């Protein structure tokens, strides 16, 4: 039987640029029992800022911005994510994406990368984040009146990352985030030998699988789950009194996303999630897996998720407990500081 192994995240892009609706939906999702809410940046207000705005008004739900790793500054994104973790008191995670398109590249005066470079670049960027987040040891702020020292310089570390395309000296300008290391959720394609090899704390923590077919998705997730935490993403269109989910999905038309579409009843979705939980459960190591739901319409499908799907799932044995930090909800081990271990 499934072992309370599934985390559920609800995407809030449907709230658009309305920050008050975003916060309201985040509170609804928190009350309903979602583990996290997510925010992407497609033509919308900044994902980190929306997450931060929502974090300031919620108490235990995770906040997951989607951030590109290619055409951003690793030093800035590491600072932003650490700050989001500080503001949310340990509830932040990073859904890493690689948006290798010319619009993104030209906006910052760069050019697209070769496909073969993507996983290396992502690995360099993740390494930079990991090292910056460890560059302050947890107790680096000592406030030692006798010696006049606010910081213990011995607990601060240069990161000295030498990537293929950039280098970063460090240390961070922001103290170590409450989680030590934020959970990173990254696409499966990046988990090559030289890329984000699946090694917690060095690469990403969670492998994100995307494929258009639900059955393939389940099969790939099952296969991947034997070596670590997985995440799947679904566009969700649920039956309502006036319209079937399938009709709604058909009306919306061709999706630009590469996500699988789930169209059907709340019952059918619950059964799919139970199947997913069963197929990926690994009681031996308490591994947890993420199902990331993109409601076709936040007002319609989001409401069905909150009013019908979540209550039934909560009474089953599927959902993982919600812990104080996102790392703990994922049952990830305590993030040891790499610099502390070395000393």
């Amino acid at each position, binding site marked *: 039987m499934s072992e309370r192994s599934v985390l559920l995240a609800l995407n809030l892009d449907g709230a658009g*640029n309305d*920050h008050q609706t975003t*916060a309201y939906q985040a509170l609804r999702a928190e009350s309903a029992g979602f583990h996290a809410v997510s925010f992407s940046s497609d*033509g*919308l*207000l*900044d994902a*980190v*800022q*929306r997450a*931060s*705005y*929502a*974090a*300031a*008004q919620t108490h235990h739900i995770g906040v997951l911005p989607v951030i590109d790793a290619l055409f*951003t*500054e*690793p*030093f*800035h994104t590491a*600072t*932003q994510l*650490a*700050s*989001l973790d*500080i*503001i949310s*008191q340990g509830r932040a995670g990073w859904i890493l994406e690689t948006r290798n398109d010319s619009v993104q590249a*030209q*906006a*910052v*005066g*760069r050019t697209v990368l070769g496909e073969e470079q993507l996983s290396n670049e992502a690995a360099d960027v993740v390494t930079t984040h990991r090292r910056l987040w460890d560059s*302050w040891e947890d107790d*680096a*702020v000592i*406030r030692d*009146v006798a*010696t*006049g*020292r*606010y*910081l*213990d*310089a011995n607990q*601060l570390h240069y990161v000295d990352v030498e990537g293929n*395309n*950039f*280098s*970063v*000296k*460090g*240390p*961070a*300008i*922001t*103290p170590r985030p409450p989680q030590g290391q934020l959970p990173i959720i990254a696409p499966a394609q990046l988990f090559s030998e030289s890329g984000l090899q699946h090694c917690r704390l060095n690469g990403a923590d969670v492998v994100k699988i995307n494929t258009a077919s639900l059955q393939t998705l389940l099969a790939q997730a099952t296969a991947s789950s034997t070596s670590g935490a997985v995440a799947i993403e679904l566009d969700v269109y649920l039956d309502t009194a006036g319209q079937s989910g399938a009709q709604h999905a058909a009306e919306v038309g061709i999706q630009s996303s590469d996500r699988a579409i789930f169209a059907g009843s709340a019952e059918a979705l619950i059964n799919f999630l139970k199947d997913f939980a069963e197929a990926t459960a690994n009681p031996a190591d308490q591994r947890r897996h993420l199902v990331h739901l993109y409601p076709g319409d936040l007002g319609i499908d989001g409401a069905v998720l909150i009013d019908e799907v979540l209550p039934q799932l909560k009474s089953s044995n599927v959902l993982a407990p919600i812990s104080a930090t996102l790392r703990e909800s994922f049952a990830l081990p305590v993030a040891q500081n790499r610099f502390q271990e070395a000393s």
Partner: protein
Amino acid sequence: MSSQHQLRFGVFFQGVNSSTVWRSEASGSQTDFASFRQIAQTAERGLFSAFFLGEGLRLREHLGGIHDLDVAGRPDAQTMLAALAAVTSKIGLVATQNTTYNDPADLARRLSSLDLISEGRAAWNIVTTHNAWTGANFRRGGYLEHHERYSHAEDFVRTVRQIWDGAPVHHRGNHYNVDYTGTVPASAQHRPVLFQAGDSAEGRDFAARQTDVIFSAHVGLEDALEFRKDINARAAKVGRAQNSVKIMPGAEFIVAETPAAAEEKYRWVREHQIGPQQALAYLEQFWGTRLENVDPYGPLPEFDPVVEQSSVTRGSGFQGAKSLELAAAWRAEASQKGQNIIEFVRSRSHRADHTFTGSYDQIADRLAQYAELGAVDGFNITPWLIPTGLDDIVNHLVPRLQERGIYPESYAGTLRENLGLSIDENHEQRALKPALVEQEVS
């Protein structure tokens, strides 16, 4: 009585500096959200126009190691301000952001985003740097020469403003190109308010052309009047109206019920800001060597600085200082005043004219003079204690300023409105035209 000219307050939560007291029992976290929330909410209760966050993109160093004597470790400005937007509703939210180590498209998008999330309360304090030391944390590295920093900054600001105006931007610059069309709509205040603090002739011209508010270093009344005159002259040259560039000097307030209590508090603050280690470290920057065997309670070192060097690692204020001359002058000054090292540094590092020390009534009267003469548009206050450092000002000084008719009784609306700024369309247009800009910009 009412006066036409009102003063406005901002609060600068510095996060990295030597003026924040961290040795007291009352000193709170420099990092926790709760500290930022408390300062911002207190400021809003006092009808402050703006809440400022600073930025330094590399942890400061001292003689080759991490500088460990001052508060440090601050959260990202815009991420923090987005959270504060949720727990405040009127106060402006100002992010210090660098034009050298950001991308115009990314920064324009994030600032617009903050402006919408805060419902027209966002501002950008424009700073520029050129040093490779900071660049070591970024993809581009130290790509900018000192002499290019203002032309690059202006190029950058112009690009950001074009993005905010909504047209497709195809910018060709010396260092990189930008092809981008903004996706975030304008807020109720049209675009984020622009602040700038540069004080060189170049910096002042830049401010006169591009910015709404100058966060100045000219606090003393005479100094402030002179600065106002100078900025007005520079603004006139680019066709901007008198006093259209607002001026808010950074200042420290040490206030209490009575003059004697304020003096007592002043001594306490200085003692807690500058201890023996901080005093020696201050001199070490100019002496270029460790002074660990020097007695901080004795006279300034008799020996000369080891090298005539300047340091970029503690901020631009120290660059270009001629150490030998300085050392000689300081020895003479300290000896004449009978000051030991710690006394000298305390008097030196926190200039008396940047601090308003006195009873609430005394300070209210002094500020009334500023208002009457139109010397400044307000002050950007750096609290010396986090998170309670604004309490006295909000509870006791602000009501006295209101009684004198020189401080707002309520918020007007957006940050732009609260600062008394208009949207001067002519200037908006002109600012985009390279022809009006003296420097090489492409």
